[in-house]
């Protein structure tokens, strides 16, 4: 009995530890290093790990431009995720009920997820070019006023949201469709026998049963949206001015164009801490809300 237990522990560790150690080695040690760097005064004129204490942290809390970029990230994440959820759910409902040549449409609808965000953003840039882009070309053909896509704040924000919705709605679609396919059949039969309308069946049966899956899908998308960088880098380069700058881009600029290594490290850590807190709270709220009522 004793030996059985011993070997069991051995196998147990042999399964988990290689992966766990690999992940810890790749992520946790660099993270500790970033914390150390944030306490130094490493910049373009002075390289090295001296110790200046909380100087960078105090400076970061008063950096208006950084906190503006955090607000912007909140707006981007909120709007893109909501839009992706509503559209993804609609797509999943349409595909679930069976459409002509289903496989064709499913493949077509999945394609955006397979394309490279940073590269598709270049295509979006060519579409939203004010002078020679397709969008204003179509507007011109329809007799409408051209829009200043890249020189005004709202249109520029809109182009990012469009690119993100195009890119990631398929991901929502995929998770929600898989969820719909895994639902039990009985509640729908019951609703049909009761003569409930399609609208009522959706709100009373489908939507509540999908709540846990919806919550999971939204949280996953929020996590990915909180890191947005690629599309902003290639599409607007944070412009006009810094009107579409997000924290990733802001910190990247401090690092790789201004070499404010320690200050950038501090900002990136604040960004990480805020992301963890906000996402944990949202995750908890969603987990509560999506629990089936009554049991």
């Amino acid at each position, binding site marked *: 009995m004793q030996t059985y237990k011993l070997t069991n522990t051995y196998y147990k560790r042999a399964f988990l530890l290689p992966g766990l150690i690999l992940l810890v080695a790749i992520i946790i040690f660099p993270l500790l290093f970033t914390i150390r760097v944030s306490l130094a005064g490493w910049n373009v004129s002075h390289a090295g790990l001296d110790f200046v204490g909380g100087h960078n942290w105090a400076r970061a809390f008063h950096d208006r431009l950084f906190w503006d970029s955090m607000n912007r990230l909140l707006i981007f994440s909120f709007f893109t995720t909501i839009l992706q959820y509503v559209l993804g759910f609609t797509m999943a409902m349409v595909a679930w009920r069976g459409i002509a040549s289903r496989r064709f*449409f499913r493949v077509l609808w999945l394609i955006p997820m397979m394309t490279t965000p940073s*590269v598709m953003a270049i295509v979006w840039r060519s579409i939203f070019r004010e002078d020679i882009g397709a969008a204003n070309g179509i507007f011109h053909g329809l007799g409408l006023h051209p829009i200043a896509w890249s020189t005004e704040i709202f249109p520029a924000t809109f182009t990012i949201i469009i690119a993100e919705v195009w890119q990631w709605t398929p991901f929502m679609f995929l998770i929600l469709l*898989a969820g719909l396919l895994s639902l039990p059949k009985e509640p729908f039969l019951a609703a049909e026998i009761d003569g409930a309308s399609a609208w009522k069946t959706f709100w009373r049966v489908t939507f509540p049963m999908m709540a846990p899956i919806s919550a999971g899908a939204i949280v996953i998308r929020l996590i990915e949206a909180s890191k947005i960088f690629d599309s902003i880098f290639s599409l607007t380069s944070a412009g006009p001015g810094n009107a579409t700058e997000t924290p990733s881009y802001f910190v990247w600029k401090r690092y790789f164009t201004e070499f404010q290594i320690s200050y950038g490290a501090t900002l990136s850590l604040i960004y990480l801490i805020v992301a963890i807190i906000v996402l944990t709270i949202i995750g908890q709220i969603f987990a509560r809300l999506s629990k089936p009522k009554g049991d």
Partner: protein
Amino acid sequence: MAKTFRTLFIFVWSLFVLTPLSWAVVTSFKPPAAVNNGVTFIPWVQFKPTLSGWKDILGISGYANLFPNLWNSVVITTFSTIISVIFGCFAAYGLSRFNYGWKFYKNPDIIFFFVSQRIMPPVVLSIPFFLFLKTLHLLDTHLGMIIINIAGLMPIVVWLLVDFFNQIPREIDELARLEGCNPFMAFLKVILPISRPGLSVAATFAVIFAWNDLFFALNLTFTNAKTLPAAVVALNGTVTPFWTLSASALFTIIPLVGFAFVAERFLSRGGFAGASR
């Protein structure tokens, strides 16, 4: 009513999906005049298609050659996917079958630890990665990029596979154990062969995320190991015209879009229905 809406939605959404792709295809064949002298849409009618955009990126005109970058992307994506799926499937199987614990830190917490690594914005780790790789002489090498990519891929793989293994009845393992297999052999000989759908989904996602990564490729590769997205983004940062950019964009996404036709089969089956719960 509902049917009209459905048809309309299918039509409008498919159009939306196709718009940027078809614009890129059309633009990649445009001669300079068709881009710079006003917006054109229809080849042969509004302009005469030319291959100059494609010649620019395939090393024919001497402007740029993306084939080495394609090779880098293929090598880095393949190996980081294989390694993260191997390590990830062992960890996921362990988490699905054994009880781990260290004080009040239990299985769900360990799974959450894996998954929560996705929250980490790449920018937090970019400076240490840069310095560590430089110290190890791995900056701008395939191996360096593969190691970095694994950190991003393993959380996805573990997250998808734990759930998949949970759906496989434990009786199957126990039967294999009764036959005289140790846990290792039971996993390799019995569980892995029937896990092909789950492994395919996990590998597909790993391929997508590895291929499409920009941030680390942008900052940690320069010439030798520069991946396709980083190379195309670098072209975007210069005065490269739109016909060449469109061709390079298509060159980057075509391999994965081709892959989409193969992967769709695994993805839209209920393979990871429960993963989001």
